[in-house]
């Protein structure tokens, strides 16, 4: 499957985007509706972020995306903001795992040449990220087999129901 969307970047803060920035503690503790949580996604880094995202867009970042707390509300807020995948040079471990548990792809790739608004096409099967705007092809890091399984099943809840436990 090929996913298409625009790159949404944080040029002033490409690295170490932590889960507090993705969804602040002041929201995640009191809001249970994921659609409402999503309206506050990335708010402390960019108050207009939710408004500028269009369905299918990608979050594109540098190193150590999602560091900090284990809050699953972070990938949840991203997913419910209609982001189709997060693409970064590297991810923090708990966030990375939470993404696949929710069926949200977290893709490792060299993002250094991607700018805000670039038109991207992600082909996970071929392992290629196309930057249509810059006319460039970027190879993505292979998605680990366990994560592919979770993604194919539609996340951990569906995986668990389908196999009556873990089958990784």
């Amino acid at each position, binding site marked *: 499957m090929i996913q298409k969307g625009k790159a949404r970047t944080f040029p002033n803060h490409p690295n170490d985007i932590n889960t507090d920035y993705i969804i602040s503690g002041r929201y995640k503790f009191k809001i249970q509706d994921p659609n409402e949580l999503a309206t506050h996604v990335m708010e402390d880094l960019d108050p207009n972020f939710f408004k500028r995202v269009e369905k299918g867009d990608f979050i594109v970042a540098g190193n150590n995306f999602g560091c900090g707390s*284990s*809050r699953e509300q972070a990938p949840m807020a991203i997913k419910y903001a209609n982001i189709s995948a997060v693409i970064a040079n590297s991810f923090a471990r708990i966030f990375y795992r939470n993404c696949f548990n929710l069926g949200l792809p977290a893709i490792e790739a060299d993002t250094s040449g991607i700018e805000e608004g670039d038109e991207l096409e992600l082909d996970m099967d071929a392992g290629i990220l196309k930057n249509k705007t810059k006319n460039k092809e970027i190879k993505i890091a292979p998605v680990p087999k366990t994560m592919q399984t979770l993604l194919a099943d539609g996340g951990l809840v569906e995986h668990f*129901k389908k196999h009556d436990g873990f089958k990784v």
Partner: protein
Amino acid sequence: MGKTIAEKILSNHSGKDAHAGDIVIADLDFMIGQDGTSGVAIDSFRKMSAKKVADPSKIAIIIDHSSPSPNQGVSAIHKKIREFAAEQKIKLYDIGCGVCHQITPEQGHCVPGDLVIGADSHTCTYGAINVFSTGIGSTDLAAGMISGKLWFKVPETLKVVYKGKLPKGIYSKDLILNLIGKIGADGATYMALEIDGDAINEMSVDARFTISNMAIECGAKCGIMKADKKVMDWVAKHSKRKPGPIEADKDAKYKQVIEIDAAKLEPQIAKPHTVDNTCGVSEVVGTPIQQGFIGTCTNGRLEDFQIAANILKGKKVADGCRLIIAPASKDIMLDMIKDGAYQTLVEAGAVAVTPGCGPCVGTHNGVPSDGENVISTANRNFKGRMGNPNSFIYLASPATVAASVIEGKIADPRKYL
């Protein structure tokens, strides 16, 4: 081939000869959730069509992050947690019991050699008592509660050896801040930290918790230490369960070994807005401070408050400055009252809040104003962490916080010792 502590614990719990890079499905000894993550875990539990948890005696939920509830939204989450715990016969630690990462070892829920997960990133804290404990998300917790198991990628291990003796005024907090500054916020991503050395041997178990607690701040999966006599005595005092201490093999394979001379350090500060933005206190001495905070799962233990009380005894928090303290558990609060540290700190001007996370996570108990500087013993100083993205958080040891609130500006604690 020899094994690290992490490889051995994951082997023991999966029945596999597990080495770094392997994927294993392992039996869990204990698991926890807190009020910020358990609501989602309960939702996932229901979505998985589960009726019962595998073993309620291996689960605890702790209401600590936003407790007592500051608003209707949080109250709804707390209610949901209380009902779930009652329905599943799970041990619930309600408001005022304390922070999950103090409660879990203190109430004897984990012992050396255990494998523990928690829906909170600082679950790595119990590494100090030789437990492989790691933070996971809410849906992983739900899967763990239903099946008693979780899948793990066996991590490579980065070994850190602290040589030398800690100088006066330098504490475990300074050691871990220094390490995070050295290797960076992603310096140990996907890896286990194994922490050892003379400086560790010398310090109390409480002081060691501070170091393991912050392993996640350099991306590590756990921050594990050996179980020496101090650990075994501590565990015997807190738990009835039989410990199964694990040592690394002499020929264990490490990704890297870092040696640090503890004797050469000065008090450390993490400047806003990242934990790896560290420096020696001398670089920021004199920075005005409007709020100090002593507490959290990092530094909210008896010893931390005793250190602060010794510095603040007979002195006052400076005009224009506030000091908030939050004992990490009710037991610690009672010990502080017996010991006199509680009275000393309150007399000096400290405001004591409910045992729990206090203002650390920005939901209640002391949200700073725009432009204010806070010096805190917590583990994170991210922008907005304490509830206001326009404030600035400096992280330090309890001694440095105590010295700083006396002066109303960042101060070197060594002159008060």
